[in-house]
């Protein structure tokens, strides 16, 4: 078997294991939808135009960054990573399996949120922008996955994973045009929040849904995300670990 075939095969095993736990799978998809409903109720009519792309971003962040950081830290603590490290499976193929599966879940989630926004709230899906949407999603998913792997290495043990990962991701989501519209935030905060990639992911996605932005390919947002992606890969190489810490 080629290494690429091994990586694809790992995605299939990850995927199979994922669907074997229906409650976990169900809530992975229900969670962003619950947020979507709550925000639309809270902010009333017209909010759906903002919250459909915003919750798409939230779904991708959850399915890639949060999910990878937590599950990989837990798998490491259980000794799963160490076992894999002792087999001839190339390390990258194992991680590609986990990341690949996370990205598939993220894509399914994007589709679910987009369709729900269209069916329930009448927010048109910008089909004309599909190639750009795919590009933005690809760059965002890669960046967030790399940081998921890096942060998994910073989490000391399985018990600490949910608290630590949420403490990192939730504040960032609040200043990223995801849970809250940044044009209503203090200007300094609006400006400062532009250093981090989730803000740019959200801005790009909002623009594709016709909110703000200049139209066309969001090069600035893609560029910032890609730079964070490179940093994320370097951080993952530096911090990732296969050994449980005892």
């Amino acid at each position: 078997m080629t290494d690429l075939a091994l990586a694809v095969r790992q995605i299939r095993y990850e995927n199979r294991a994922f669907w074997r736990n229906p409650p976990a799978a169900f809530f992975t998809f229900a969670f962003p939808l619950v947020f979507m409903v709550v925000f639309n109720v809270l902010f009333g009519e017209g909010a759906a135009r903002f919250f459909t792309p915003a919750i798409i971003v939230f779904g991708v962040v959850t399915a890639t960054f949060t999910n990878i950081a937590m599950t990989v830290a837990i798998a490491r603590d259980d000794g799963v990573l160490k076992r894999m490290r002792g087999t001839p499976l190339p390390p990258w193929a194992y991680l590609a399996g986990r990341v690949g599966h996370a990205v598939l879940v993220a894509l399914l989630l994007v589709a679910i949120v987009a369709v729900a926004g269209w069916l329930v709230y009448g927010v048109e899906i910008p089909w004309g922008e599909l190639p750009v949407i795919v590009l933005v999603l690809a760059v965002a998913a890669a960046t967030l996955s790399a940081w998921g792997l890096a942060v998994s290495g910073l989490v000391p043990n399985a018990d600490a994973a949910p608290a630590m990962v949420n403490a990192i991701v939730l504040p960032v989501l609040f200043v990223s045009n995801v849970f809250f519209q940044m044009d209503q935030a203090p200007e300094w905060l609006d400006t400062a929040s532009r250093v981090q990639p989730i803000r740019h992911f959200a801005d790009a996605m909002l623009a594709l849904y016709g909110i703000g932005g200049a139209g066309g390919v969001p090069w600035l947002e893609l560029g910032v995300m890609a730079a964070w992606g490179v940093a994320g890969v370097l951080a993952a190489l530096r911090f990732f670990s296969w050994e449980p810490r005892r």
Partner: protein
Amino acid sequence: MTAPERPGGEAHPVVEVRGLRKSYGTLEAVRGVDLHVDRGEVFALLGPNGAGKTTIVEILEGHRERTAGEVIVLGHDPQRHERTFRERIGIVLQQTGVDEYLTVREVVEMVAGYYPHPRDVDETLATAGLADLGSRRIRKLSGGQKRRVDLAVALVGGPELLFLDEPTTGFDPSARRQAWDTIRGLAAGGATIFLTTHFMDEAHVLADRLAIIAEGQILAAGTADELIGARSATSRIRFRLRDGMAPPDDLGATRSVDAWELETDRPAAVLHRLTGWSMEVGAELLDLEVSRRSLEDVYLQLTAEEAGLE
């Protein structure tokens, strides 16, 4: 070093270790260990918890880097972590996990796919005692059954060398016997096995050769018979007496918790003297027992000597 992929002549030991040292900060876990394992041999590293067994076996597996010394396993330096090396070994770690939602068969098939020449999955499941559990999810297995999955996963690649780190710790006595039978079966099939254990009987029953380790140093190495013999060919005589009685002084018996014990090279003469005294004074010898020195005695003596040196 340009080691041959597969050394044809087996003049080289499968495992060769010289002057191995490993420190964690200021703690010296392994302090100058030499050992070798030949092809087809079952080798046991026997020692108390914290002696450095796991550190050594994980250095041989490529999981840890050594601080100093020479380590060659199957012609490779394990810490270079080469794929061709990992293809030839099987590892049962002390504690590992697998995806809980896959079935036993799926896990073993998945891992089989990583190797160029895997064993047959059904045969591997049968060897590990999992023939009837193939379709069960890992989640639903007992602790002992999960241990068997560990073994199946380590075996399915068809390893030339199998590492077993404390393979029966936490097993009940019957599961332990079963595991021993499995390991002996593998050894009979020609596998080279490197195991660590803190059970004397396990090392004695399974190993062709063993090394006793404490505080990061090898105290003695050889076959079990050699180790027992090397510490003089003594017999041990043990008995109890009714309260207030003591055996004649010239026998040199010592009092342990509730019994008298003596060691001798001339058991017949000593027993003659002891039973004669017993008849003469009417002191019944309760629970009289004559035994050969066991590996346990050697082990306890060595580790006590080692502690005395500290």
